[in-house]
């Protein structure tokens, strides 16, 4: 119950998940790869007009990042559920919500952070300027953890449910909408010269909110799934 053993459990979870990711290095590369693919498919589908591409750039990047996060996230708990590791996690003598934070954090490190780091490169492809690129990175840095937190709720809710891949999308995407609007809005308004601060601080607020609420909801959902 005390702080140090709680920390030990959380860091244990993070370490294990990072180890697993190392074992399957390609899985970790997956979300980055997905981002690159979706972003590059667009010019193929939409046509190469640079003006159009610049206009839609922030939106496409954000949507792609959002989908990448969602897809990689929808399976955070599935493997643990199927092989019984989740039962063991619920029976750990620490509050489940704290362990959930660890799990989500590990996930973000594996698949969210690379997306953030890669984004400026993709932004360049869409002709974003230097300052907008900065705002893009900032917005993703604040936004993707929120996405992970919210996504974890959905992932936990659909455990053991068939066709869960798409159900989780249905559950989670509506909740992603504000983040998307603020995130893409930040970049767009910085491109329009208004500066993205207002939107960025809204993103920050979303992050704080989700950090406080999502772990509890996720923990509740996990317990329900195991009944």
């Amino acid at each position, binding site marked *: *119950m005390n702080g140090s*053993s709680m920390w*030990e*459990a959380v860091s*244990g*979870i993070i*370490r*294990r998940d990072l*180890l*697993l990711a190392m*074992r*399957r290095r390609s899985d970790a590369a997956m979300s980055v790869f997905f981002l690159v693919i979706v972003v590059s498919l667009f010019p193929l589908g939409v046509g190469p007009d640079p003006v159009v591409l610049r206009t839609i750039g922030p939106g496409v990047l954000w949507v792609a990042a959002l989908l990448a996060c969602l897809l990689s996230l929808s399976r955070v708990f599935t*493997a643990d559920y*199927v*092989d*019984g*590791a989740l*039962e*063991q*996690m*619920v*029976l*750990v*003598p*620490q*509050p489940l919500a704290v362990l959930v934070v660890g799990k989500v954090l590990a996930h973000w490190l594996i698949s969210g952070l690379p997306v953030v780091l890669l984004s400026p490169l993709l932004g360049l492809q869409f002709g974003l300027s230097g300052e907008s690129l900065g705002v893009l990175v900032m917005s993703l840095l604040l936004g993707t953890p929120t996405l992970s937190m919210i996504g974890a709720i959905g992932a936990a809710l659909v455990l053991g449910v068939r066709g869960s891949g798409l159900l989780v999308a249905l559950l989670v995407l509506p909740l992603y909408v504000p983040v998307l609007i603020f995130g893409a809005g930040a970049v767009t308004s910085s491109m329009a010269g208004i500066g993205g601060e207002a939107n960025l601080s809204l993103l920050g607020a979303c992050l704080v909110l989700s950090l406080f609420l999502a772990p509890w909801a996720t923990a509740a959902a996990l317990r329900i799934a*195991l*009944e």
Partner: protein
Amino acid sequence: MLQAVSLRCSRGERRLFTDLNVKVERGSLLAVVGENGSGKTSLLRIFSSLLSPEQGSVLWEGQDILQLKELYAGQLTYIGHLNGIKDDLTPLENLMSAMSLAGESCSNNGAKEALEAIGLKRPIHQLPSKVLSQGQKRRVALARLWLSTRPLWLLDEPFTSLDTAATAVVTQRLHTHLQRAGLAVVVTHQEVALPTEIVQRLRLTG
């Protein structure tokens, strides 16, 4: 001391058991037996607090486990039908991360000894678990028992897929655990494999 007070459990439309009372003292073992589908696993999950009973309660040292929450989780080791091991990690890594998660960190050597105690030799420690045979996987899960210092063990068919040698080793380990004032609830179809200690038998009739 683990005590079940007038437990009732239904799954779906089916009433599995009602008014079930049982008491397991330290140093003794409760063998839960019964036909397939009679509710043994459900009972074990209620004991572990994974499932909440429809009625009644489970007491640990006289206190309701639903109130004890994490404190109770700190008292037990649960091994279910599923092994809870990760296909991509080696047996050693699996064991160590399971232990550290449970708050009972162990050294690398300790883990190796536990694996050897249950008959997994050194070269196997370094293979990814997915190439192991069914029985070897079960052994990895059971190796936790050699490191566990928790008083209460809840085991769901521990002997599945094990060969006779491994069965004997696990029985021996259960024996030691009981002698050290531990208590255990074991679900099994192979009663013969249980240690000849104070075994209390609970037969569920479904």
